[in-house]
C-alpha cells in the first residue's frame, strides 16, 4: 500500500498538509511539522512587511476557536534565514503569500521561489483584516493578482478560497484562466465569539477567523461543489481532526487536505496521529492508493428534488425507562413521544419520520424504518 498522492505536480508522501498559520511561523515550527510527518507545510502568510501580533490573539469558547493573527511577524530577510535551517527531507514547502497589488504579489512569489518554496499559495480570502468578503470573491479583482504571481514563478501557484469563492463557477474559471494550478478551500469563516452583555461589547475587538470542527461540514460541501464545477486539483481545509475525516474529503474529490486548528489545540503530534489513522483505515480496507477512493462518494450526491420520499417512521420497541432524559420528546414537534408510567413511548401514527429522535437518542433505542 502507498499513501502517496500527486497534487499540482508535487509528489506528496501522503495527502496531509499543514495549513498556513502560526504553527508554521518560522524555521523551528516548520521543522516540528516536518518531523511529525507532514507531507507538505504551508508557511504562515508572508507579506512584504512584518506584521504586529495582537495579544490576546486567540479566543476560545467550548471547542470554538477564533484567531486574529493574519500575517507573519517576520521580515522576508528573516524568512530567508529561517527557511535555510529547515531540513525538509521528502516534505514539500508551500509559501503562503499576500500583497496589496499584483506587482507586489509577483515579487513576493518570486522571492519565495528563490528561497526554495515548491509551490505558492495565495491567501486571497483571509477573513481577518479589512478585505471585504465581496472583494475577495470577485473574479475581476482576483484575476490580475493570480496572473501576476503565476507568471512570476515556475513552481505551481494555488489559491486559498473562501466558501463563497469555492462555490462560484465564475471565480473558479477566472483563477484557472489566470494560471492557478490548484486551490485550497475553505479558509476560516469570519466570526465574532459573542457579545458581553454587561459591557455591551463584542467578546473580541475585531472579527476573527472562525475555524475548527464546526466548519467541517461547510468545507465538505465546498469540496463537493468545487470538484463538480472545476477540474482544478483541490486541497480541502476546514476542521479536519482525524484520519477518517481526511478520507471523507478524498471521497468528495479532494487530492489532499490541510490541517491547522487541530495543531493549535493538540500540538504537532496530531499530524502523526492523523497520518497513522489514515494508513490504518486504508490497510484495514485493502486500499492500495488514495486514488482508488478519490471522488467515490460524489456520484451518490442527489438533487433534493430527485430524492423519493420513503414512508419511514421511528420505532421504539419497548418503552424507554430513562425517564429523566426526554431528548426524543423535547425535539419532537409532531408530539409522537409521550411519557407513561412505564417510560417513554412512541406513537408511530403521529411520527413523520424526520429522524431526529433516532439520531439523538444517547442509548440508540430508536430506529428509523418502514
Amino acid at each position, binding site marked *: 500500500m502507498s499513501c502517496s498522492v500527486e497534487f499540482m505536480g508535487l509528489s506528496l508522501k501522503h495527502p496531509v498538509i499543514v495549513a498556513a498559520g502560526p504553527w508554521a511561523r518560522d524555521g523551528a515550527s516548520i521543522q516540528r511539522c516536518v518531523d511529525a510527518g507532514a507531507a507538505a507545510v504551508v508557511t504562515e502568510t508572508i507579506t*512584504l*512587511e512584518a506584521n504586529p501580533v495582537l495579544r490576546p490573539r486567540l479566543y476560545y469558547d467550548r471547542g470554538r476557536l477564533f484567531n486574529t493573527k493574519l500575517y507573519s511577524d517576520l*521580515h*522576508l*530577510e*528573516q524568512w530567508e534565514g529561517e527557511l*535555510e*535551517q529547515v531540513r525538509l527531507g521528502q516534505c514539500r514547502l508551500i509559501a503562503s503569500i499576500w500583497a*496589496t*497589488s499584483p*506587482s*507586489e504579489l509577483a*515579487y513576493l512569489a518570486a*522571492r519565495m521561489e528563490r528561497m526554495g518554496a515548491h509551490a505558492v499559495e495565495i491567501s486571497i480570502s483571509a477573513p481577518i483584516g*479589512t*478585505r*471585504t468578503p465581496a*472583494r475577495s470573491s470577485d473574479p475581476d479583482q482576483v484575476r490580475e493578482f493570480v496572473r501576476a504571481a503565476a507568471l512570476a514563478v515556475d513552481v505551481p501557484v494555488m489559491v486559498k478560497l473562501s466558501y463563497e469563492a469555492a462555490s462560484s463557477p465564475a471565480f473558479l474559471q477566472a483563477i484557472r484562466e489566470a494560471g492557478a494550478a490548484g486551490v485550497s478551500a475553505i479558509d476560516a469563516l469570519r466570526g465574532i465569539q459573542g457579545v458581553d452583555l454587561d459591557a455591551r461589547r463584542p467578546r473580541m475587538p475585531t*472579527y476573527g477567523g472562525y475555524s475548527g470542527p464546526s466548519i467541517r461540514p461547510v468545507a465538505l460541501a465546498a469540496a463537493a461543489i468545487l470538484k463538480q464545477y472545476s477540474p482544478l486539483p483541490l486541497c480541502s481545509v476546514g476542521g479536519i481532526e482525524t484520519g477518517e475525516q481526511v478520507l471523507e474529503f478524498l471521497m468528495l474529490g479532494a487530492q489532499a487536505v490541510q490541517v491547522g486548528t487541530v495543531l493549535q489545540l493538540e500540538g504537532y503530534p496530531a499530524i502523526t496521529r492523523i497520518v497513522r489513522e489514515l494508513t490504518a483505515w486504508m490497510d484495514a480496507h485493502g486500499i492500495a492508493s488514495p486514488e482508488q477512493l478519490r471522488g467515490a462518494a460524489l456520484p451518490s450526491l442527489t438533487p433534493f428534488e430527485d430524492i423519493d420520499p420513503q414512508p419511514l417512521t421511528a420505532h421504539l420497541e419497548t418503552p424507554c425507562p430513562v425517564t429523566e432524559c426526554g431528548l426524543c420528546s423535547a425535539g419532537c414537534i409532531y408530539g409522537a413521544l409521550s411519557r407513561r408510567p412505564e417510560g417513554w413511548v412512541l406513537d408511530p401514527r403521529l411520527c413523520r419520520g424526520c429522524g431526529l429522535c433516532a439520531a439523538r437518542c444517547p442509548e440508540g433505542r430508536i430506529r428509523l424504518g418502514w
Partner: protein
Amino acid sequence: MNIKEVARQAGVSVATVSRVLNHPELVQPETKTRVLSVMEALHYTPNWFARGLNLGKTRTIALLVSNIERGTDRDLFAGVETVALKKGYATFLCNTHGSAAAEADGLRMVQDRKADGVLLCAPLADLSGLHSAGIPCVSIGRPRDALTENCCYINCEEGAFRMTRHLLSLGHRRLVFLLDRSDPEDLRQVAAGCRRAVLEWGGGADGRVLLTENSIQGGFVAAERLLQSGPPPDALLCDSDELAFGVLKAARDRGVSIPEELGLACLTDSPLCTIVTPALTSLEQPARRLGMVAARMLFDLLENEEFSAGVPQEIILQPKLKIRRSCGNRAHISELFDE
C-alpha cells in the same frame, strides 16, 4: 578582537570565518551558527574599511529623498534601513529638497564614497553617470516615460481618485483640492487622480486645485482665505495630514463645523488623524513598505548578476482608504472594511 581569535574559538579556519562574513550561503548552517555565536560572544565586528578595500565593496547604500521632514519620507527611510541592516549594510541619506543641483551633488557623493547602490526618489537628473560607473540603482516614484530601471512607487493617482470618489459618493459636489506645491511630479499624479474622479462623476461635480506650502501653517492660511472669500466648498481634500490640521484650526476659529458644514480629508494618514476630533478620513500611504521593496530590489541587483541584465521591474503599491468621521460618513461598516 580579531578574526583569528574568532576562528580559534569556533574551531574553524580563518577562511571559514571570512566565508561566513562574505558568502554565508556557502557555509554549512551549523558551522555558520557556531561562528556567528562566537562573534556575538566576543563582540567581534569586522573592519569595514579593510573589507571595502579587499572586496571592492563598502556595504553602504545611499538613499536620496526630496524632503526628509515629510512623514512619508521618514517612513520610507525606516523601511530601507530595516532591510539594509538585516543585510549588514549601512544607509546614508541625502536630502535633495527637490533640487536637481542637490540631487547631482548627492549622486557625486555616492560615486566618491563608493556606495554599492543607490535608491533615488523621483530622479530629476540623467542617471547615465551612475550606469557607466556600474552602480546599481532603483528609482522610487512613478516613471515619467518608458521604464529604464527598476522602480517602485505608491499609486498616488489611484489613491487620489478613490478618495475624491469617496467624497463625491457622500454627496459633496463642490470640492477644493489643497495640494503641496513643492514636488511637481507628486502634484501632477495627485491632481490627475482628483480630476479623473470629478470627470467620471459628471453632473454637478466640480473640483478646484489650490497650491500651498505643505505645513500646518500653510493649511491654516489657505483655509482662512477660502472661508473669508464666500461660502465654503462642500469638502476640502488636503495633500497631507499637516495641511488638514491647519484647516481644522481655521475652521474651529471661525465656527465652521466639520463635517456638517465642511467635509475634510487628507491623502497622508498619520497616527494623529485618529486623535483629532472629528477623526480624519485619510489615505494610508505604505511608505515604509515602499522603502522595504525598494531596498529589496536593490539588493536583488547587488546579489544576483542576472537581475542586472534582465528587463527592468516595476512594483506598484496601493494606498488604503481609511474612512473616519470628517467627511460625513456615518456607516460604521465603512470604517471597518475597505471600499
